């Protein structure tokens, strides 16, 4: 990962949760970077550590039980982990904004939506309350909600509309980086299409970088320039979208693709990854994927595989399969 001017550069980040049954290694020695204007897809299954990483960037890892135990998060060249709480507050919402997964619960039920947007505006701009409310209405219009509904409470909106409000809040201060955590997972597919379309449009207008956290490779194909695949707290593959979709390098990535039924062809049986996600309090040694990996050799259980650049910009954390693979042949 060469450094042009990076917007975000996460180095060797580890975040742990201490719970009754042990220490959960939610994020483990994670490296990730993002150039200005880029859209990064951040893909993994439940428990892979995607949301924790995002909360880590925001400085919102719940503590206790969570704790950033190692690493750096460089944002515009400065380490966010070294910032004071007050400095973080002006970055949060102002420069980095976040959209959460469940629109049903992300809005305060007893405050009208215009005030919830205006709050964001007031926090990061030197404006009067009147101006902030005016801006809130503009934002609502921008996300496709009529001004008349500004004074409604969240429960008066449907799920898709609520997510629009959440997006309006996140974009109200023109953030440099937007982190969207599974923004459409809770929505129906036709409503998801509306919301994705909206995000597409707004990103062009507002010109923000995006980290799109999702488990849906389809959304990545549509929205992102680059993809990071996460497994058990680590990024195992990082590549331009095209390279990743056309020749995935890591056996896990390959398994992910094979698990999704193909709409365009008939397959009798899906080629599945055997076994289960490892227990996060007790990760396997070496490559965390090795117990489930069809290509594993003895060394996999001992050495942590480094990221290898198998073609320009395409990094894979697998020495065995770290070469272009034949998704093409399928």
């Amino acid at each position, binding site marked *: 990962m060469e450094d042009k001017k990076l917007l975000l550069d996460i180095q060797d980040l580890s975040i742990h949760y201490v719970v009754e049954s042990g220490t959960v290694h939610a994020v483990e020695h994670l490296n990730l970077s993002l150039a200005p204007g880029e859209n990064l897809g951040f893909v993994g299954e439940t428990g892979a550590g995607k949301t924790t990483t995002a909360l880590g960037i*925001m400085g*919102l890892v719940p503590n206790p039980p969570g704790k950033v135990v190692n690493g750096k998060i460089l944002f515009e060249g400065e380490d966010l982990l070294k910032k004071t709480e007050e400095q*973080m*507050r*002006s*970055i*949060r*919402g*102002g420069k980095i*904004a*976040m959209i*959460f997964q*469940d629109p049903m*619960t*992300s*809005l*305060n*039920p*007893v*405050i009208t939506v215009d005030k919830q947007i205006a*709050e*964001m505006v007031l*926090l*990061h701009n030197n404006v009067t309350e009147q101006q902030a409310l005016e801006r809130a209405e503009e934002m609502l219009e921008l996300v496709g909600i009529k001004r008349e509904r500004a004074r409604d*409470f969240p*429960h*008066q909106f449907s799920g898709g509309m609520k997510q629009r409000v*959440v997006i309006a*809040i996140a974009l109200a201060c023109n953030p440099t980086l937007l982190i969207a955590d599974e923004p459409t997972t809770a929505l129906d597919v036709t409503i998801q299409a509306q919301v994705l379309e909206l995000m597409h449009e707004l990103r062009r207008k507002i010109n923000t970088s995006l980290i799109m956290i999702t488990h849906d490779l389809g959304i990545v194909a549509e929205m992102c320039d680059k993809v990071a695949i996460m497994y058990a707290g680590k990024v195992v593959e990082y590549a331009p979208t095209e390279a990743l979709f056309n020749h995935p390098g890591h056996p896990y990535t390959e398994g992910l693709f094979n698990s999704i039924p193909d709409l365009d062809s008939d397959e009798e049986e899906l080629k599945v990854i055997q076994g289960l996600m490892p227990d996060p309090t007790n990760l396997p040694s070496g490559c965390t994927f090795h117990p489930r990996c069809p290509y594993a050799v003895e060394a996999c259980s001992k050495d942590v595989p480094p990221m290898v650049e198998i073609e320009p910009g395409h990094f894979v954390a697998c020495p065995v399969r770290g070469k272009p693979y034949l998704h093409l042949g399928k």
Partner: protein
Amino acid sequence: MFKYIARRILFLLPVLVGVSFIVFSLLYITPGDPARMVLGDQATEEAVQEFRNKEGLNDPFLVQYGRYVYKAIQGDIGRSYMTRRPVSDEILSAFPSTIKLAALSMVIAILLGIPFGIISAIRQYSLFDSVTMIFAMVGLSMPVFWLGILLILFFSVQLRWLPSSGFDSLAAMILPSITLAAQSVAIVTRMTRSSMLEVVRQDYIRTARAKGQKESVVIWRHALGNALIPVVTVVGLQFGHLLGGAVLTESIFSIPGVGRLMVEAIKMRDYPLVQGGVLYIAIAFSLVNLLVDLVYAWVDPRIKAQYK
């Protein structure tokens, strides 16, 4: 909103009918002949019979109940065996003290319980939290009548700072209201704390933090409004608890309220007066509940919206 109020008031009617039915049934099954109670042991059998006929005491149960309700609507719920005065008059003259006592205790419970609950929740697991929670538990477990006695013992007998009885001066009100409030303070504190802890875990609190909002504003503006909604219900229920507890408190501090009146009546077997007290307090409690429901609808837009 008007529809909601109308509905709630309409709900009150069956409850009042039910309460009156219970009270009347209890009077009905009470051992002892009311005629004898009124006329005294010396009365002749004929006089008793005549009284029974005159008062309709020989009629079937439901007829008597119907008459009771009919009279109750006009404010007549019988006469006290002791004083021969109408029960309503007796109770209404004692009512202000009881309400004053309960209301004062309620204010104490709210003023102490809510802040302590909030601070405890914000500093979960801190020393403050632990101490508050242990005190709350002790408060919850303290019998009202014992606390009253201990307070009298300490502040009246030992220190001689405060009077041990009466309710006519501010100084006299202090001990009884603290006594009565103790349990409610504990309950409101615990409820506020757990409600706050619940709310603080919600996604919209994370949203507020993600906006870059200050922690204090997150707590006061976003968490509190939501956390207090269930507290409102508990406070309402506490009022009933306080009205009930007033019976004991009043008798400890010799406060001339409904409670003491009822305790005296129990000792004298003046059952109409006892049940009358129950009826009046139940009505007062129902009205308070109505009020709470309205407040509830006012603070929670989701309820308000249902009845637009």
